[in-house]
């Protein structure tokens, strides 16, 4: 078995400097459209296949809950190569005063109908590039030990009961984080007879990480927000 020890040591350390410093590696984010002043905003907004762009006077705003950063507007409006995408919904901002999870956070990951990409990006947090354990974030096998319910997918009808039971089994204080556009709003699948409009169907959502899928660093940013160890990045 010593071969594995050497193999492990030889690989060295690859872990991201985030959140101590920004990570500038290539390919860590798909990027996303940025709102702002553009020429002919109405025309650009009308080309968005999911209705995420809205023209406001001379500029454009992006509905983060709907945008799937399909590249339809890539040539027309500026895109940003950022990853600190997590936000706290206005309702949750008022409710939250205490931050009980500063040092460690146990996460129950539940798939409520995702396509596999969000789940795969959550899974990357366990690989050496992101290694969320170093920050005190752990995946827990049972809702009884979970502080945070991390939901992916639009909340399919068949998963609703299971998710409700899991959420009810979590001890308080507890939080809900919606990861991905589907979990934020139902995305392109919801709402329909079998798919809902996202994680808010089970309880009030405390942090939303939009994206299709959000890259691992965006999810990490979301976890840091839940723990009260990072700030939202306000879009200008």
């Amino acid at each position, binding site marked *: 078995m010593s071969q594995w020890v050497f193999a*492990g040591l030889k690989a060295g350390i690859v872990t991201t400097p985030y959140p101590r410093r920004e990570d500038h590696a290539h390919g860590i984010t798909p990027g996303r459209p940025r709102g702002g002043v553009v020429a002919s905003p109405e025309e650009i907004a009308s080309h968005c296949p999911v209705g995420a762009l809205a023209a406001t006077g001379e500029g454009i705003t992006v509905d983060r809950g709907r945008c799937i950063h399909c*590249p339809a507007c890539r040539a027309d409006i500026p895109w940003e190569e950022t990853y600190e995408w997590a936000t706290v919904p206005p309702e949750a901002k008022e409710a939250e005063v205490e931050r009980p999870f500063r040092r460690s956070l146990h996460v*129950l990951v539940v798939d409520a109908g995702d*396509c*596999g990409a969000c789940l795969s990006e959550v899974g*990357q947090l366990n690989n*050496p590039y992101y290694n969320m354990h170093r920050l005190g974030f752990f995946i827990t*096998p*049972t809702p009884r030990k979970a502080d945070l319910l991390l939901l992916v997918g639009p909340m399919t009808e068949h998963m609703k009961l299971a998710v409700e039971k899991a959420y009810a089994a979590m001890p308080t204080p507890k939080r809900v984080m919606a990861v991905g556009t589907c979990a934020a709003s139902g995305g392109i699948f919801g709402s329909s007879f079998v798919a809902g409009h996202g994680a808010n169907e089970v309880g009030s959502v405390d942090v939303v990480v939009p994206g299709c899928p959000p*890259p691992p660093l965006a999810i990490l940013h979301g976890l840091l927000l839940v723990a009260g160890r990072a700030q939202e990045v306000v879009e200008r």
Partner: protein
Amino acid sequence: MELNKLEKTLHDRFFERLTTRISSSFLDIECSTADLIEVSAMLFNEQACAFAGMIIEEEDVSWSLRYMFYNDHGMIQVMIAASHDQTEFPSISAHVHASDWHERAAEDLFGLSFSGHPRLGEFILHEQWPEGTNPMRRGFDARAPFSHWESRPDWEPPRVFDSPGAFSMPIGPIYSGIAESVHFQLETIGEEIVRVIPRLFYKYRAVEKLAQGRSVGEALLLAERFNGTSSFAHAFSFCQAVEKIAEVEIPQRARRLRAFLAELERLRHHVAALQGICSSTGLAVAASQAGILEEEMLRLSGVFAGHRYLFGLATPGGLTRDFTDEECRNVAGTASSIAQRLNKLERLLTRSSSFLDRLERVGIVTKDDALRYGLVGPIARASGSGRDLRTFLPYGGYEELLLSPVQEEEGDGYARLRVLFSEARESSRLLNDIAADLPSGDVCVPVEMRAGWALGWTEAPRGAAFHWVRIDDAGNVAEWRIIPPSFVNWHGFHLAAEGFAFQDFPIILATFGLSAAENDR
């Protein structure tokens, strides 16, 4: 067998009872309901045709049922038509076992019944839906919320196995760790798993229904997003169906680049599958090493194509963007270095006896079973039945590419591991071949939609992915059926897990590498 010879053989047996037509590697057989079983059984069992799936269409006054078979000369369609009040059809599953789940799905979605099928009912729609809910029927409004939901807390899954001391162990749909939502009922008398009853479709999003009446562009968003881990392959397959309908030839450069992207996706998928196998056996360093490679593949895709999972690239008519030859060569170079590191990982793994013990002679699927269930992809190739659509029925940009077929015979977890490693190497070689010789020209031609239907197919990372599309007069999607590889392979999954111990279950699951999202669609 060549299609015209097959046509003659059919006529020798069925005389004038069949109407047949051949057009460019497509044999169309119209037969009566009475002959259906015999014709399908002959194709599947005597002529060794593979069963692709079943496509049902509801029309105003009639039903049409298409049973799609294929061999290495083309597609064979057996079609029966019936008046709209007929809701019972003969089940072919006694002779074509591969059709088992297709008939169950049709029963749920269309409300058709298949006489002779041993187990219809409660499949895609779980027990909470009232009888007679058939979402694929024409009158069903998919965008309206469904109000007849009944929760039944007293519900218990049916049990198959009855013996003193036997018990049933439920697992899922919520697991420990990061896993897709699937439920298994494992029936056991202690250590050995006697029966595996998977309960799928927890993630059913009805994408085929949602696409009805939408534009091709909107349906494409669903095609590439219903299963994010092999998104490009499905978008590719969908686009091919649409292009066949519109009768457009896509430019040579786009054909090659599509194959290039498909191989890039396959390489990433296989690395992720290998990572899954390493972590299921608890080999931490190997899992980390494979995890590093997986993230590097994701970053490579991100840098090259602007999306880590290759969303938003395929479009009817070609690709949404071009790549420079140099970019492609750089990607191919990085892929080679990743393939070399995979070789190193394989060498280390094959020297770890504790790892091999968990895989060798565990989770066996025999060749006969693989053929009977019509298994596809790396799983079938590990059981000695390698029908790789890239060489079997070449499509897209694969006609001119040279592939060496990968095949193993044992059908156990170790054979599946070796197939994944070999195919990853092969993909990296193909990436280099394509990048070294890229034709110049455009990557997209305009597509003018017209009414019609067609079947598109690709060899997705998990196996054959068929997309059948019908376009209406307005150029919108009227009907769309997806036959994903995971649907076919989940059907055969129980073969691998039954007869093995409980602690092998997660490892067998990992060596199958199936996707619930792809199956549940």
